[in-house]
């Protein structure tokens, strides 16, 4: 959860008084808070930590770090269904590293 996952902002909107956005992580889209990245707009590449944009990146770096994170199994839980009730623990299937073992 310390590395964050790069994604592209595809929508910006306000919700409950704070600036939010939709972020595309290689085809999976997630809602993320943009309060800490006031400069970003639609089309910006950002690094998302647990649903919050903390910094911006360029597209090339985003691609590189995404591949590295996928290989490490460190893509946080971006593929977690973002339902209003959360995911029940027994239904949780973490994404492991792309290839484990030597």
């Amino acid at each position: 959860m310390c590395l964050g996952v790069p994604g592209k902002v595809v929508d910006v909107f306000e919700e409950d008084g704070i600036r939010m956005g939709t972020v595309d992580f290689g085809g999976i889209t997630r809602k993320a808070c943009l309060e800490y990245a006031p400069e970003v707009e639609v089309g910006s590449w950002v690094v998302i930590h647990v649903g919050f944009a903390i910094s911006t990146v360029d597209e090339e770096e985003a691609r590189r770090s995404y591949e590295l994170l996928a290989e490490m199994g460190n893509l946080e839980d971006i593929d977690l269904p973002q339902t209003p009730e959360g995911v029940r623990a027994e239904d949780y299937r973490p994404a492991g590293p792309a290839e484990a073992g030597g």
Partner: protein
Amino acid sequence: MRFVDEYRDDRIALALVDEIRRTATRTWTLMEVCGGQTHTLIRQGIDELLEPEIQLVHGPGCPVCVTPLALIDEAIAIAKRPDAILCSFGDMLRVPGSQEDLLMARAAGGDVRVVYSPLDALEVARRNPEKTVVFFAVGFETTAPANAMAVRQAKLLGVENFALLVAHVLVPPAIVAILVSPGNRVQGFLAPGHVCAVQGWREYEPLARDYGVPIVVTGFEPVDLLEGILMTVRQLEEGRHEVENQYVRTVVRDGNAPARAVIDEVFETCDRAWRGIGVIPKSGLRLREAYRAFDAELRFPREGAPASESELCMAGEVLIGRVKPDECPAYGTLCTPESPLGAPMVSSEGACAAYFLAGRRRVEAPA
């Protein structure tokens, strides 16, 4: 040499390896603090490429690993309450408490849910007003802005059934604890790039000066790590001890100002116990008075016997860099990611899991 095959940047990486070896006139021991950096180093075999000139030891930067046992037990106790829902990041589910983990609490009838963001936990609270919804707020400075925002929104929106079980830890006090620990051998630090994206590096400057250690803010890609190592080694060879920034494309000296402002509004520093290490002064965050009503530890005071750890597990020694994961007698035999004795074998950021996933074998202890 895996990264030679897999990375387009292999020529740059190998040039950096050569330059590091040329620069080092003796053996230097460096610590990377962040567990994500540990995974890159081990998976790419960078540590083995640099030996013997450079010894890399791995730091405590795995939030799941250092969350104290007592708080895991508290989370499990809350999860089992009929009047509560425990929300967590997914990687906490299998971290062993003294008797069981959160998945077992779920199997015993507790309501445990995984969320991607603390704001999602706030939404669970709004939809379940008859329950207290507790979010297990673990992590370093990188998750603090998110957890702070969730509490701030709960207060603004009047969501009174939302609470945080706060286990936040901070990197700079941990670096001090390692530097003053008996037998410390770390001579330079790679500071965690994404933590510094939030906090900047001003608070590392007195550490470099007062303890005479180079600290280089470093990213997590292979080339970043090699460049951070080279910058640290150059300082050591030249007798300098400063904070330098390798990760210039992401980190500025003052960090992320809006994020720091919300952290400061919601949290204050406190002493915190680190799993396997013990209490480190001023190394944690807790809710400020104005937000204390959202503190799960006050709503559900702790009960039961004090927590106890596995006697075999050497996680504490691993977390401060005194032993490497493959030197632990339980590594890979009694302790595996499937059946972990300690948290560093569970988490995607844990050093023991990094070694195991890279296929490292246990090192026999010298006779």
